[in-house]
């Protein structure tokens, strides 16, 4: 820009750099959902691997369509009573101009819509880890559609939408600790209280079938999370995004180390699953807080979350609820810890002026954080349980006990994840589905075969 020319601060211009940055961040966040699928897929038994992958993957289909139809409008449309949004221009994303900027930012509305879409996709997918092995795929698909509509879209409005009550109150949720992780974790708890335990819970061994897959998934999540967190400032021209990127890395490292240290002391080994789980716990915890804390604060947030989540995952055995893959233990606990720690560690110098208890801000911000956490937790828990009950009473949530024991992949998807069969495979193709010569050529083919035999 030539010297002497300034652009009024209240009229942002489209920034090619920020727009490009945000499109890349959106693509990174998209990668988290298949990453999550692998993270969960490796943790289940062989017989339910594909179902676990599909429960995440289907969210890419269902939520994308709902987002275009009405989701974006509910989450980010004009506020109605601080509870939900609605703008007819956003229905079908049809009334938005290519160059129309998201209010107050330098990126187009379309870019914002795409970025937020990826959050809307992964959040219901997060819930699925608690339901491994036992939920009908149609029931899950219906639940995802209902949950996104009734819970996610409005809660996203509360937390991030202009006019949303939590936003107006001053609850800090940088990238989705409340709207994504507490929301999904509480929902997971609500649904498993309705659907009950897996057959054989606490009796049968339910070891993860592929820890390399878990590691791959965790690594993809970690990678994609940079888009999730650093992109949540919706631009890159004041350093907050970079700060968030750094804090994401720092907290994740600290949480992984804390989880591993706890494991070594408590159980005698540094496990792969512990490293992957600790990393995810750190990512969850820094999500709400990373824009408010210093790098040293991020170490504290990560370490505290890693430790508390490692302790929390054992609670399901104590309390007897079957949160198959510890969605409550990692996402709910991690999200609550990260959100509340904003009230302690916020420095007041980065994302918002609000200071935490340790930086002379008193209890004010902690109180706001607690209000946000409590309200989202309670709403999501209760609404999700009601939705699960609704699906259960209509089309039924669970597969039969026989099908569950035999393996959900086969009955729900007509596939199995791996071919372990020796001695020739043990399977024969069904003629109807095998490509071969057309029927009218069959005689000709037979003749040619005879000819070759004659020679």
């Amino acid at each position, binding site marked *: 820009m030539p010297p002497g020319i300034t652009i009024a601060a209240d009229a942002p211009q489209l920034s090619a750099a920020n727009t490009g940055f945000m499109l890349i961040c959106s693509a990174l966040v998209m990668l988290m959902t298949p990453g999550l699928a692998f993270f969960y897929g490796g943790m289940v038994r062989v017989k339910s691997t594909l179902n676990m992958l599909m429960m995440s993957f289907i969210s890419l289909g269902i939520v994308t369509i709902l987002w275009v139809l009405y989701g974006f409008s509910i989450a980010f449309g004009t506020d109605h009573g601080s509870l939900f949004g609605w703008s007819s221009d956003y229905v079908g994303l049809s009334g938005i101009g290519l160059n129309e900027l998201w209010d107050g930012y330098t990126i187009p509305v379309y870019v914002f819509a795409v970025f937020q879409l990826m959050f809307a996709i992964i959040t219901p997918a997060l819930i699925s880890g608690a339901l491994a092995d036992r939920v009908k795929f149609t029931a899950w698909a219906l639940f995802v559609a209902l949950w996104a509509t009734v819970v996610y879209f409005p809660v996203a409005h509360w937390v991030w939408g202009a006019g949303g009550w939590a936003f107006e109150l001053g609850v800090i949720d940088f990238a989705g600790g409340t709207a994504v992780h507490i929301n999904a974790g509480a929902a997971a708890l609500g649904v498993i209280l309705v659907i009950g335990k897996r057959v054989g819970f606490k009796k049968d*061994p339910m*070891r*993860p079938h592929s820890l390399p897959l878990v590691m791959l998934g965790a690594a993809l999540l970690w990678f994609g999370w940079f888009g999730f967190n650093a992109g949540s400032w919706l631009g890159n021209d004041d350093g907050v995004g970079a700060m968030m990127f750094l804090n994401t890395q720092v907290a994740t490292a600290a949480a992984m180390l804390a989880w591993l240290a706890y*494991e070594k002391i*408590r*159980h*005698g*080994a540094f*496990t792969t*699953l*512990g490293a992957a*789980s600790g990393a995810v716990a750190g990512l969850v915890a820094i999500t709400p807080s990373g824009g408010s804390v210093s790098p040293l604060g991020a170490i504290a947030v990560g370490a505290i979350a890693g430790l508390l989540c*490692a302790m929390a*995952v*054992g609670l399901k*055995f104590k309390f007897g609820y079957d949160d198959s893959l*510890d969605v409550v233990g990692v996402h709910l606990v991690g999200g609550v810890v990260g959100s509340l720690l904003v009230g302690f560690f916020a420095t007041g110098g980065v994302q918002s002026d609000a200071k935490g208890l340790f930086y002379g801000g008193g209890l004010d911000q902690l109180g706001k954080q607690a209000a946000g956490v409590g309200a989202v937790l309670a709403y999501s828990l209760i609404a999700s349980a009601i939705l699960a009950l609704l699906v259960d009473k209509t089309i039924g949530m669970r597969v039969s006990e026989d099908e569950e024991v035999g393996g959900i992949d086969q009955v729900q998807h007509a596939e199995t994840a791996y071919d372990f069969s020796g001695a020739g495979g043990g399977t024969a193709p069904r003629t109807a589905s095998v490509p071969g010569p057309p029927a009218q050529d069959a005689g000709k083919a037979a003749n040619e075969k005879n000819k070759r035999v004659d020679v």
Partner: protein
Amino acid sequence: MKLITAVVKPHRLDEIKEALQAFGVQGLTVTEASGYGRQRGHTEVYRGAEYTVDLVPKIRIEVLVEDDDAEQLVDVVVKAARTGKIGDGKVWSVPVETAVRVRTGERGPDAL
């Protein structure tokens, strides 16, 4: 004839094969197996939940030999398989009524 069967630790396979070849054994069959003896497998920990894995990986080696060689060959296998640590396995021999070489139809010791 005797059938000598050894269920041993997988990493001893090469030593056992070499010992058998040095002894003059012409052929053998190796199968992957799993099982446990008095040590009862091991424990694995996943997010704090402990699992006892009873069945540990083993290999099963089978060799057909003439009666006179059997005792000595058992010793050869035992010596080659031994690490001195728990879980080294078992070796045993049983009488065999008939053996036939499929290609030629030879029977008895000629089939070995």
